[in-house]
């Protein structure tokens, strides 16, 4: 608590120094400044971390030339991106081409403003925080469309259309699985959600049947929502070069990456807030460690999980991605919502645990069994040619 | 922030409504015509919210409830309308309503 109080006191002190008419603006500025700076820097570090970890997964070193252990690699990348020529195709719609990366970055950054980083440490504490978050996610779809359409490039347009189709489809399970938490907490405000998990690790939502399945569904939808592997078909380099980013270069390209990185952080922070106790320590004894540290720790471990998945999986095809969303994710998230409803109706307790757990387990195993029997995708056994009687 | 009179909201709403109406009347592309209809619906929503805000009772939320329904129905309308537009395009290879004259004598 002391850390959060300290920050808030500093902010109020600074705000009070300003002339009266500037105070609202100054307050907003001071609230958003730490988010923008820390996540900008964090994004740079995350690119390094991702490249290092992917390298290790692939039995390589990863970047290790710039600075000690490659620590300055993001700086070098940034300088490279800044000094590159900014090419805009002749036929492109210049205004839209220019606005798209900005729109993407702004919407990603805005999403962060409703995440509670600590007790009362939230830039925009509104009643409908999570709705705001999803609204900003929806706005990023438009930015991606602008990028794809404004470039006047077939690959870019195809990539943008894929990205939007995918994001819209996965928004449904994303919101539905978040809804289970909101149902139990009974509030749309993220600080309320975080506060509901303040009692230590056993109160975290992930350790309930509906929270566990909800967390997994939420993470999968998150992967799709931020276009990361195995759902990175919008920028599938083996098919579409770079999707909606094909015609971008220089700093605008870097902005796209930054927006993607910030969106990833925002989604991970939301996951941590919804399911992993937010800024709360797993044990009440450990709560002397500031809340932001816990949140960033949880966030980083989720990012590491994403990198791990990225290092393992091939990507799905666009239509299979949709199929997965509608055939698996949507039914499972609806079932999970019912399980959360059971939990709310029974007001927690052992019976609720058993009932909702049973519901989720039966649904998952039964549905995945039905799906894999109905699907034509199975491991195969192979025959060998007869030794004798070789025929053409 | 908030205006203390209802008039500007109503004027904005009227302006948007008429713009949407103009769009429906002028354009020859069914998708943009649909956009005009959406605009008109939105204009109505502004009125609903403004009336809710200026209603003296604190418990009265009918205006908001209306807007919730309006948004949902507008979304459904857009989905069906655009699906129709696409299937009409598949049939006529055109999105111009003037070209869809099969039933004309």
């Amino acid at each position, binding site marked *: 608590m002391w850390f959060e109080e300290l920050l808030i006191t500093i902010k109020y002190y600074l705000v009070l120094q300003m002339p009266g008419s500037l105070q609202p603006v100054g307050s907003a500025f001071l609230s958003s400044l730490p988010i923008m700076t820390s996540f900008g820097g964090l994004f740079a570090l995350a690119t390094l971390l991702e490249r290092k970890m992917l390298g290790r997964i692939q039995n390589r070193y990863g970047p290790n030339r710039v600075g000690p252990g490659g620590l300055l690699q993001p700086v070098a990348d940034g300088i490279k991106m800044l000094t590159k020529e900014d090419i805009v195709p002749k036929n492109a719609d210049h205004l839209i081409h220019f606005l798209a990366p900005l729109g993407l970055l702004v919407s990603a950054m805005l999403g962060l403003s409703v995440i509670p980083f600590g007790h009362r440490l939230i830039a925009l504490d509104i009643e409908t925080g999570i709705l705001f978050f999803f609204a900003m996610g929806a706005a990023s779809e438009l930015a991606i469309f602008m990028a794809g359409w404004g470039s006047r490039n077939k690959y870019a347009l195809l990539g943008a259309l894929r990205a939007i189709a995918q994001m819209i489809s996965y928004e449904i399970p994303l919101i539905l699985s978040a809804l289970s938490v909101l149902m139990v907490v009974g509030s749309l405000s993220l600080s309320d959600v975080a506060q509901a998990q303040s009692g230590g690790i056993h109160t975290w939502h992930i350790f309930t049947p509906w929270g566990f399945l909800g967390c997994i569904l939420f993470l999968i939808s998150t992967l799709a929502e931020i276009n990361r592997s195995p759902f990175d078909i919008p920028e599938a380099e083996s098919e579409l070069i770079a999707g909606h980013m094909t015609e971008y270069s220089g700093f605008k390209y870097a902005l796209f990456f930054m927006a993607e990185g910030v969106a990833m952080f925002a989604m991970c922070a939301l996951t941590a807030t919804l399911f992993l106790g937010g800024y709360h320590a797993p044990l009440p004894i450990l709560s002397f460690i500031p809340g932001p540290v816990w949140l960033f720790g949880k966030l980083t471990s989720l990012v590491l999980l994403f990198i791990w998945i990225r290092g393992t999986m091939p990507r799905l095809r666009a239509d299979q991605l949709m199929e997965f969303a509608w055939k698996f994710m949507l039914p499972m998230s609806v079932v999970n919502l019912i399980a959360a409803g059971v939990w709310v109706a029974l007001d927690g307790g052992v019976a609720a645990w058993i009932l909702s757990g049973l519901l989720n387990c039966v649904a998952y195993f039964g549905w995945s069994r039905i799906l894999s029997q109905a699907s034509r995708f199975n491991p195969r056994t192979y025959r060998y040619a007869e030794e004798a009687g070789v025929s053409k | 922030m908030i205006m203390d009179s209802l008039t500007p909201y109503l004027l*904005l709403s009227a302006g*948007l409504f008429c713009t949407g109406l103009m769009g429906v009347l002028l354009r020859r592309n069914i*998708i943009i015509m649909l956009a005009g209809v959406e*605009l008109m619906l*939105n204009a109505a929503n502004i009125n609903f919210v403004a009336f809710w805000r200026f209603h003296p009772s*604190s418990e009265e939320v009918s205006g908001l409830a209306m807007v919730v*329904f309006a948004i949902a129905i507008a979304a459904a309308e857009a989905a069906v309308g655009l699906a129709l537009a696409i299937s009409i395009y598949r049939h006529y290879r055109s999105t111009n309503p003037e070209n869809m004259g099969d039933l004309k004598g």
Partner: protein
Amino acid sequence: MSLFFTITALITMASAIAAMTLRNLVHCVLCLTVTFAGIALVFLQLGAEFIGFSQILVYIGAVSILMLFALLMTRGGTELTLKRWDPVHWITGTLIGIAGFGVMSFAIFNSSLRQSKIPEAKADSLHALGNSLLSQYVLPLEVMALLLTVALIGAALIALPEKKVFRRNASFSKNQESGNK
């Protein structure tokens, strides 16, 4: 007049007019999203947070994207109809619009609603809205849910493309019938 509202209203109106008159259809829809965002801002100013963010979520995130998809699927990225400049058509349309606006503003300025005073800030509109939706308006809500489901299925059915089989007309395929296995 509040400065903030004035700016919002002007941007909203300007983009709405642009959305209805621009020649490039994608530009039209993009301007329309600006209008939607402006309307959402108006909602937020009025203190209807839930409605405002729902507006962004539904209109910017879904409806305008749907429109863009439909435009691209119907190859309407550029509308060439406006080439056939029809002044009579346009002037009549504009006049009807202005006349409608005139009638409405006349009604507004003569209405007793102008006198209504703004009450104190509304408390906890979100919970009140939720409660009334599930008590007072529960039947309309259910009907709306049904309508949405039907609309979803209907839209999917209407837009479903007919299945096609593509075959190559090359020499290999011709030989296939003889089948020299």
